[in-house]
């Protein structure tokens, strides 16, 4: 089916891109979410502002103990990136299993977060990791935690004239992590991330895909994580992948599995 007509803008600097953005002139990168929404008639922008030619939005680097990932980096590249594989293997493994191989070679991390698909694997793992995003706008730059940014289903806290520049993940020496998900259709029913920094006594659990937004909690020890209690904390959305009761059950099962998998992961 043909897409509605639009103009294509191709800025090569961040400032140029920011000047192009309006309510009807929207950021475009991989198109894996935006083009589908446009085809479904949910969105009809006058122009797409292609971000793929802006060097400031790409690249992966470590800066003062923080892993910085440019917004336009694609999932397939993040999955195999040597720095990510070495410093944050749990994130590389999650990226390797997003959607399917075509989605991974087109879709970007920034687009994934901005679209705020409630069944995204990315936001769940990033919330558990305590990650943040950098946004640029006409007033300058600001930082928001992923929890402050992804606030609702298909709703990220971003003004139309703002751009997501990068994702920042604080690195921890000796971090162990596991992400497991249950999936029978195109998107997961539940995804559970568990992270452990034993030396610092820092433990995090993230649960996503079951409700409107992923949720993450901190613990003082792994023993404090009670899968049945976690299943009561979530707010599942009943849909084709299951009822509320079923999703609570599957969540408890996958929290247990995530903890069991973590035991096999060495620092």
């Amino acid at each position, binding site marked *: 089916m043909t897409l509605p*007509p639009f103009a*294509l803008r191709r800025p090569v600097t961040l400032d140029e891109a920011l000047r192009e953005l309006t309510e009807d002139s929207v950021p475009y990168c991989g198109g894996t979410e935006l083009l589908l929404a446009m085809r479904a008639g949910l969105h009809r922008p006058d122009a797409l502002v292609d971000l793929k030619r802006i060097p400031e939005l790409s690249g992966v680097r470590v800066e003062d103990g923080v892993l910085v990932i440019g917004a336009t980096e694609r999932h397939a590249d993040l999955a195999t990136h040597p720095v990510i594989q070495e410093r944050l293997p749990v994130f590389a493994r999650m990226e390797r299993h997003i959607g*399917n*191989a*075509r*989605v991974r*070679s087109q879709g970007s991390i920034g687009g994934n977060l901005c679209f705020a698909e409630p069944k995204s694997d990315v936001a769940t793992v990033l919330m558990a990791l305590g990650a943040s995003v950098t946004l640029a706008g006409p007033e300058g730059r600001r930082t928001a935690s992923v929890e402050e940014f992804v606030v609702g289903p298909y709703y990220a806290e971003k003004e139309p004239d703002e751009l997501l520049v990068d994702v920042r993940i604080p690195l921890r020496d000796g971090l162990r992590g596991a992400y497991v998900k249950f999936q029978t259709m*195109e998107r997961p029913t539940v995804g559970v991330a568990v992270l452990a920094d034993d030396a610092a006594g820092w433990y995090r659990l993230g649960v996503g895909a079951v409700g409107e937004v992923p949720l993450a909690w901190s613990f003082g020890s792994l023993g404090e994580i009670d899968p049945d209690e976690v299943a009561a904390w979530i707010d599942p959305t009943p849909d084709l992948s299951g009822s509320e009761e079923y999703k609570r059950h599957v969540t408890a099962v996958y929290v247990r599995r995530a903890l069991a998998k973590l035991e096999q992961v060495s620092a």
Partner: protein
Amino acid sequence: MTEPSGPPRVPVTVDINGVSVSRQVEPRSLLVDFLREDLGLTGTKVSCELQVCGVCTVLVDGRPVSSCTFLTADADGAAVTTVEGLSDGQTLHPLQESFVDNFALQCGFCTPGFLMMSKALLDGDEVPDRAAIVEHLEGNICRCTGYEPIVEAVEHVAEQLRGGTHG
């Protein structure tokens, strides 16, 4: 098809199966429509238009993409390989040969997508094992074969590669 007052067209030069093609396209032109309608390369199929079924898979600079959700403008300067580019017209590609030998197709509608996905995998750095093949083909739908013959067909070509270039 030509709208006189539409948004400005975009010039693209794309290498399609080794042939350089230059056109002016509408920004909204999708790669699958460009291939099928403008160039008559109808080997690439269209079905779900949601990046779920995989029948429209083509390679852009070696990466598998859903051509139903890929702007032609984004293929500017790239090399696109479609199912028509697999064979030279005389000899089948080893994957095509293996699909035939292993009865990996019935109605054949999904076959171009499976072939292109498989080519992307086999062109990678590592020769895949069965688990990697199954995982990679997860995003493609076949309603005839039950998948087993398709996985076997790809496995056979992987084995040939292992024997030939790694043994």
